[in-house]
């Protein structure tokens, strides 16, 4: 068995299940935003846009609420700070107290730099971890609807499982706003 086959088998093993969806693709982002707004007005909930760069209009059009990551950052920072405080105290004053230059065993001002760095470290790594978790990353080899969607094209997709899913109506919204490609795809 060649390496190629082994990797392919591994990929198939780790690949997550996909859902089928109905996609419209644009090269003009304003048309795409207008279409997304209409899809939302139609009553769809399980739909989203795919854009090559962040666009704030998408949040409004799709109705995405503010990310919860700041809470993760706050509590992780708090945990880092608390851990640093406890650890420096436990090491220096409890587990192995050493008299260094006659300073107090628990010399808090001198521990602040370490506590500060631990606060930042915990907060930063947890925030990134939360972003990965919320976005479902890492994903093994997700289906690519159109390779240009990470370059210069914009898409709106509606999952088939959506309660308000109505293929004809959505197709009309897409074509009314001048979608270049309208197709079924996996995501």
């Amino acid at each position, binding site marked *: 068995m060649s390496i190629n086959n082994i990797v392919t088998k591994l990929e198939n093993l780790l690949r997550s299940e996909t859902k089928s969806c109905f996609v419209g693709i644009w090269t003009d982002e304003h048309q795409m935003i207008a279409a997304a707004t209409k899809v939302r007005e139609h009553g769809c909930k399980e739909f989203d846009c795919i854009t090559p760069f962040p666009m704030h209009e998408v949040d409004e059009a799709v109705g995405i609420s503010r990310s919860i990551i700041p809470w993760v950052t706050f509590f992780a920072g708090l945990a880092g700070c608390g851990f640093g405080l406890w650890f420096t105290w436990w090491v220096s004053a409890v*587990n192995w107290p050493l008299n260094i230059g006659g300073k107090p065993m628990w010399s808090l001002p001198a521990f602040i730099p*370490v506590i500060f760095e631990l606060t930042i470290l915990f907060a930063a790594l947890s925030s990134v971890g939360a972003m990965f978790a919320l976005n479902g990353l890492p994903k093994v080899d997700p289906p690519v609807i159109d390779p240009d969607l990470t370059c210069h094209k914009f898409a709106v997709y509606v999952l088939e499982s959506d309660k308000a899913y109505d293929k004809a109506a959505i197709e009309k919204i897409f074509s009314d706003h001048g979608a270049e490609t309208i197709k079924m795809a996996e995501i």
Partner: protein
Amino acid sequence: MIKRRPLIWGKKTYKDITDDICELIETAPGPKYYMALLGAKSVFLFYLAVMGTIAYTGMGLMGVNSPVGWGTDIITFVFWIGIGHAGTLISAVLFLFRQKWRTSIARTAEAMTVFAVMTAGIFPLLHTGRPWLAYWLLPYPNQRGPLWVNFRSPLVWDVFAVSTYATVSLVFWYVGLVPDLATVRDRSKGVWRKRIYGALSLGWTGTGRNWNNYEMVYMLLAGLSTPLVLSVHSIVSFDFAVSQLPGWHTTIFPPYFVAGAIFSGFGMVVTLMCLIRALVPKFKHYVTLDHMEVMNKIIMATGMLVGYAYGSEFFIAWYSGAPYEQYAFINRAVGPYAWAYWIMITCNTLIPQIFWWPKARRSIPIMFTVSIFVNIGMWFERYVITVTSLHRDFLPSSWGMFKMTFFDFGVLFGSFGMFFTIFLLYLKGLPAISIAEVKPVLSVGREEGDKIDVHQ
């Protein structure tokens, strides 16, 4: 009304941006690139040989001795850590201030940070003389008591600061890379190419919900990196300032070190950007003369900040009335290391003054030369601080001199080989300009009249 000048020149479309930036990754680079890589790699191999010899034989090969116990290793460590600071400043601080011009240079500046910190991190380990015991720097349960580290020591603060800085910078840089790696993945033709970039991009798709979380985490990382970067060089300065030595024991050190770090870092960014513009002519549309001019203004401003710090140190030494403190500073300016002191003053405060002239700010040969002088000057700043304070302290009977040996010069020179080897490999392997960040600023400064179709 003052019109904004376009950030991206050449009337690009979204597709042009992707094509231009990915070209270097997808095609064989020219002979200039290979020459540069060969040169850098040779110096890197030399560096490995020099470091190996020092680690095998012992620290006696280097110039450090009593009374100058901190030499090239610590000087060059502070130098490289300082270089890294401009990267975080561009990627984090300018991001928080909504400076849109940062988008073109942020990726490479951040890469510079990561590689500079990697280069810097080796020096303290080498300086310990027994780099294979480097893990003793970390607090971990052990069979020696357990014997923990001393959290009251600035050197331990430094371990925490530098390792946190390295980790957070790397993560910040990588998070920024993820969408661009997905772009490269979707363009790649070969199976393995697709697999490698696919794995690196972690399966990024770019849905609205993805971007929403992504932008939030990017802003949070910028907000966390800003105090972090200030803390790192403050803590590096504590290595000196917390001791009782005249010339080191001053309260001005943290801001003075941070300003110097930003100054030297921008010097290195300008050096690298001049090289990239020469290596990849297409990037001149992204890293434009306007970008270079802004960076040169920052160099001049921070150069004057460090100049002010040099003056302030002298004033405080005089004003303190402490004879040892006064002697330390007079000795710097007229003592046996006066040559180093005046190199520092010339390179850091006098030469950048040429940027008062707009022509000089916009001339590539001039800014390249100045940026090299800034780097030389900032290395000498750390040399002056470290060596002049140590070589003559309180007792004249214990005075001495510091002489650099072949091995000192070897590690200093060789570290550039390491930095440039990694940097050149990065240029070839990863998108050197942030594709997803440049696209949204495409419309900046484009006039209504010549508003071209960005979609083609």
